[in-house]
């Protein structure tokens, strides 16, 4: 309830007239209220309120340019790097507004990891890719400990058995799916609490996609995961809750099963059934 104290009662309970469904989660990890994002003049995200629950996978779906990627990038302030991008409203993680002026983004990003659309391992060895995060954050004190962290992370990412003999090969020599799992291993090596995934499978074949989806399901027990995806089937497969964005607004959010069998908003229905003209 500490979270609720920080966000004024009025804004917490206010109605989001354009959002259908329950935006709150019984076990919130991240609480977003009145989030607006502007790219210069463009109002990219309009008044979004959404909770992301502990140990849940929330899928963000919507047509291209609907603001789902923009929204997910607000959660670890990756939008800071985009010139002309302005964010208003509250995004509260563990009782701390992450857009508070006093907050340092470096620890925030250690807490909220990110996996990107295109697999982007560093052009360094597999080991170095995973070891980089723990090393810069000073999470390990010895080489042995670092090796342990690397192994655990690679194991959790389901990649250890495939790469344990090639740890000093460049990460870019792996296949696309392996590269993406390496990026996931890199993200979890700093032991984040939340993992954001921005269309992690859009460049992968179905088998690699299935492996990532299985991995997401396994990671759910340790982490909170928000995933942006263009594949509705993927959203249906991996998530517990689904949020539908349309033209910068959060149109509907709800249990994934409900969204995909009985969406309440006409726009959601039209989008998931493929009726957008």
């Amino acid at each position, binding site marked *: 309830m500490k979270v609720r104290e920080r966000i004024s009662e009025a804004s917490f309970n206010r109605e989001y007239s354009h959002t259908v469904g329950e935006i709150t989660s019984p076990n919130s990890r991240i609480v977003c209220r009145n989030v607006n994002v502007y790219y210069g003049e463009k109002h990219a995200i309009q008044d979004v309120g959404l909770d992301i629950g502990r140990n849940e996978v929330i899928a963000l779906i919507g047509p291209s340019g609907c603001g789902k990627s923009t929204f997910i990038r607000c959660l*670890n302030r*990756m939008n800071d*790097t985009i*010139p002309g991008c302005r964010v208003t409203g509250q995004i509260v993680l563990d009782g701390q507004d992450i857009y508070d002026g006093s907050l340092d983004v*470096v*620890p*925030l*990003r*250690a807490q909220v*990891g*990110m*996996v*990107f659309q*295109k697999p*982007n*391992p*560093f*052009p360094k060895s597999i080991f170095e890719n995973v070891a*980089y*995060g723990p090393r*810069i*954050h000073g999470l390990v004190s010895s080489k042995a400990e670092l090796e342990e962290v690397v192994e655990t992370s690679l194991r959790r990412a389901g990649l250890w058995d495939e790469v344990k003999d090639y740890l000093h090969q460049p990460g*870019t020599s792996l296949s696309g799916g392996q590269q993406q799992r390496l*990026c996931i291993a*890199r*993200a979890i*090596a*700093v032991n984040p609490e939340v993992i954001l995934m921005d269309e992690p499978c859009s460049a992968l074949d179905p088998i690699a996609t299935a492996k990532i989806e299985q991995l997401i399901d396994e990671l759910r027990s340790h982490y909170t995961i928000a995933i942006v995806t263009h594949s509705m089937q993927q959203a249906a497969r991996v998530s517990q809750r689904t949020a539908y964005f349309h033209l910068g607004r959060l149109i509907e959010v709800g249990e994934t099963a409900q969204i995909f069998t009985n969406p309440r908003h006409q726009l959601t229905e039209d989008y998931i059934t493929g009726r957008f003209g």
Partner: protein
Amino acid sequence: MNEICEISGGSSSDRTIDVVHASLVKRRQAEKRFRLYGLLSIVAGLCFLVLLFGSIIARGYTAFQQTSIALDVYFDPQLIDPDGRRDPSALMEADYDRLLKNALSSMFLDVKERQAKRALYSLLSAGASYDLRDLVLANPELIGKTQKVWISADDDTDMLVKGQLGRTGAEGERRIKDNQIAWIDKLEADGRIKKSFNTAFFTSGDSREPELAGIWGAVMGSLFTLLVTLSLSLPIGMAAAIYLEEFAPRNRWTDLIEVNINNLAAVPSIVFGLLGLAVFINFFGLPRSSPLVGGLVLTLMTLPVIIIAGRSALKAVPPSVREAALGVGASPMQMVFHHVLPLAVPGMMTGAIIGMARALGESAPLLMIGMVAFIVDVPQSIMEPSTVLPVQIYLWADSPERAFVERTSAAIMVLLVFLIFMNGLAVYIRKRFERRW
């Protein structure tokens, strides 16, 4: 089906594939023509290159040889060491010219006239007496003995032997007279003339006498100048490029700076020379003609090149790498130094080397700061007056003596070798360190 018919014009004989076939011949020809134009321009470029290199090499390769004349020199103790004490300072002062003249006279006893004698003596290099002196200083035992010594010939003799000076034509218009030709021919017949590798060209400084002039002074001047340029422009240029590309906010001020840097890269280099003269020499009072000032001026000139090359190398690093680094919580500086810079360094170094090569070949701004002065001594530090290779070339090209023509070409060859080496290094670095991402 209807649509397909409409596209192909409706009639069955006008199938798309037929239309394509009809236009195919034309397209193939256009393609062939285009390739031919490309090939022609490459060939033309190569022709000019071959012409340029060919003329330079053809004119200059003889400079790497120097004619010398063998004389039986009697190291007369009366003349060089009258006291018999072998005192080095006395030996330094002695009249070695006399020894040479005596040796020559003894070979051509029939030459009696003053004027003819002078003509005879002028067959030898003006610096030949110094060679003898060095010989005696190194080995005082020679005094009182007669020894066959190879003495370097005068540039006119050298030219005649190399066949570069004509033997025909009116005697008055020739640099070398009939009697001299006769003496040289006699010497040659006696086997007293030989051509050997011209070490002086690589080891000595400038001189009024072509046979004594070398490029070592200019090479050292260039080296010191480039050292100053490199040690200033590389760190400053890289720091500026990194700051502008990675950290500077994008606003009107940075835009202005960017425009100005691009402008500076296009400013005629002589303007930098004027600036250097006004600021470094007249205002700061730095020594004129010194590699320090030259290096500073060339730094000004090279900086924009290095900054622009550095920025484009940084820009070429894909944003995904930056995102990846920021995504695991690297600070902006860690992102730049751990990930972006290692990927950009080959490109930045390539730009820097190309900038350096440009600085090496630059002469105009250095003329303005006095590096065009006639300097005989090889510079030992960045504060001593010196000249640089391109300016040396410019100086020699201005000299009237025939022998300087081949030396000019030879110096150009040396400069070209340096440039090829530097550009080759740039290519090597790019190839070797270019990384896949």
